[in-house]
């Protein structure tokens, strides 16, 4: 088996998920200049709700077609996250829109902690395992193994991200989003209801986040109330790497970070002469974050941070 190519595949799978989550960070940042640290927790809620729904359906309707089951669970999860995110913006961020930038940032962290604790109360402290309703084929591809689930993750993420980019760049709604992100004042003058656009941005980001949460839970067959923290931090890193505020950058940053982590983890033993093992994978994300922040704070595709700071 080709280790390098195997890590590339793993990296793309991981990176697709990071990219989906990073889009949520970057869209909100682009429009409000706010780093929505609660976003990682929304992703966690997405995973938990989907899992709970599947477990419920599996328990009460064991005869149900697993595809239908997953569709119901995914829909429930996506809608829950959208509603949750809508209210987070509405109740927590909107009143602070004119406040100093630190206020909404601290609020975001507060919400993040609140959501984690609520999730712990609702779903418990233990790791929740995904019921085995599917069995996935593993295929050989250029000397590496790839499961149908992994293919599904990559393809679905690619479709969703393409859709989002098309909407933002070519639809009337997307044009209004870009106008709002550039100047709320001028967009309002042209008749754009700024609040609606901002709500929409949060809701779309949350939808993508929910999907990402479901995919991660499916991929690792496990979910936990604290999973949003690390995932969120890494996706944020990906957004910064690509250039926060830039949608294409978030996709690129996500995929790159996934690749760096997974290839790094594959070789970290060799690099350190066996001193560090692959469980040090997380180190790479933060190494990347620090390097980017020091040497190119605007990220690969961004020019906005300097403008806004």
């Amino acid at each position, binding site marked *: 088996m080709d280790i390098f190519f195997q890590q590339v595949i793993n990296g793309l799978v991981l990176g697709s998920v990071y990219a989906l989550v990073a889009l949520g960070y970057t869209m909100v940042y682009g429009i409000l200049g706010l780093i929505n640290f609660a976003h990682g927790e929304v992703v966690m809620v997405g995973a938990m709700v989907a899992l709970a729904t599947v477990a419920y359906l599996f328990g009460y309707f064991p005869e149900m077609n697993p595809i239908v089951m997953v569709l119901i669970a995914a829909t429930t999860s996506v809608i829950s996250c959208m509603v949750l995110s809508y209210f987070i913006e509405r109740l927590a961020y909107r009143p602070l829109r004119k406040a100093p930038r630190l206020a909404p940032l601290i609020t975001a962290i507060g919400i993040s902690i609140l959501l984690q604790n609520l999730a712990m109360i609702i779903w418990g402290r233990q790791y929740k395992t995904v019921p085995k309703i599917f069995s996935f084929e593993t295929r050989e591809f250029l000397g590496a193994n790839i499961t149908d689930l992994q293919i599904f993750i990559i393809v679905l993420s690619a479709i969703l991200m393409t859709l989002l980019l098309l909407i933002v760049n070519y639809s*009337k709604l997307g*044009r*209004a989003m*870009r*106008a709002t992100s*550039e*100047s709320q*004042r*001028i*967009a*309002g*003058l*042209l*008749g*754009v*209801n*700024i609040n609606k656009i901002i709500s929409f941005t949060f809701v779309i980001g949350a939808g993508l986040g929910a999907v990402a949460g479901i995919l991660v839970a499916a991929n690792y067959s496990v979910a936990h109330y604290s999973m949003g923290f690390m995932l969120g931090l890494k996706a944020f890193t990906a957004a910064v790497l690509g250039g926060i505020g830039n949608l294409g950058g978030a996709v690129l940053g996500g995929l790159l970070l996934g690749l760096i982590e997974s290839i790094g983890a594959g070789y970290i033993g060799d690099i350190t002469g066996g001193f560090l093992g692959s469980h040090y994978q997380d180190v790479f994300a933060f190494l990347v974050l620090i390097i980017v922040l020091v040497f190119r704070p605007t990220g690969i595709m961004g020019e906005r941070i300097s403008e806004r700071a």
Partner: protein
Amino acid sequence: MSYLSVESLGVSYGAIKAARGVSLSIKEGETVALIGSNGAGKSSTLNAIAGLIGHTGKVGFDGIDMSSFPVHKRAAKGLALVPEGRGILGRLTVDENLRMGAYLRVDRKSIAVDLLRIYELFPRLRERRGQTGGTLSGGEQQMLAIGRALMASPKLLLLDEPSMGLAPLMVEKIFEVIREISSSGVTIFLVEQNARLALESSNRAYVMESGELTMEGDSQELLRSSKVRESYLGELNS
């Protein structure tokens, strides 16, 4: 009956009162100018009418009290402002800026027709249609700002210093367009530093001094008034 009616409008920035007790009215189809020296409160008045900044007092338009309306709702009622500084969306293309002007309209066909009309009016914009707004020259941005406001097919067009920073030839061109817009039936409220130009291209005018309206009248008459000639037309002995 007045189309736009402003009653004791007030605007303040903290302790600074930029406009006080401003009452004015504009009839449908009129072109009305607002002149005054720097810092008189002209932009503040216009921005308040458009809903861009908060204000006290009443702003009524087409029989509706809009005083409590946020900016996008006032736009929906048919107001379009070309703000001071033009307000071009620098990261959107010329074409996208123009289409944003028609954001509240739904009839795709008539939007397409109007877009062609704007490009005919300003051929320069057609040449630059794929370029981002931020890369345009000042004059081109002014054309874009006016074109974008027209794309809303507004009932009342508020213009804040359309001649600012433009070469004389361009100023002429812009005012030609403004007269054309006016003769097509659009009501216009025009703030202009160039008092002569403003008075020559309007039916009526108001004069503003340190936040208050001090004169009002027929533009032709104001052009002849000695007070206006002294203070705003730079004619000391006449």
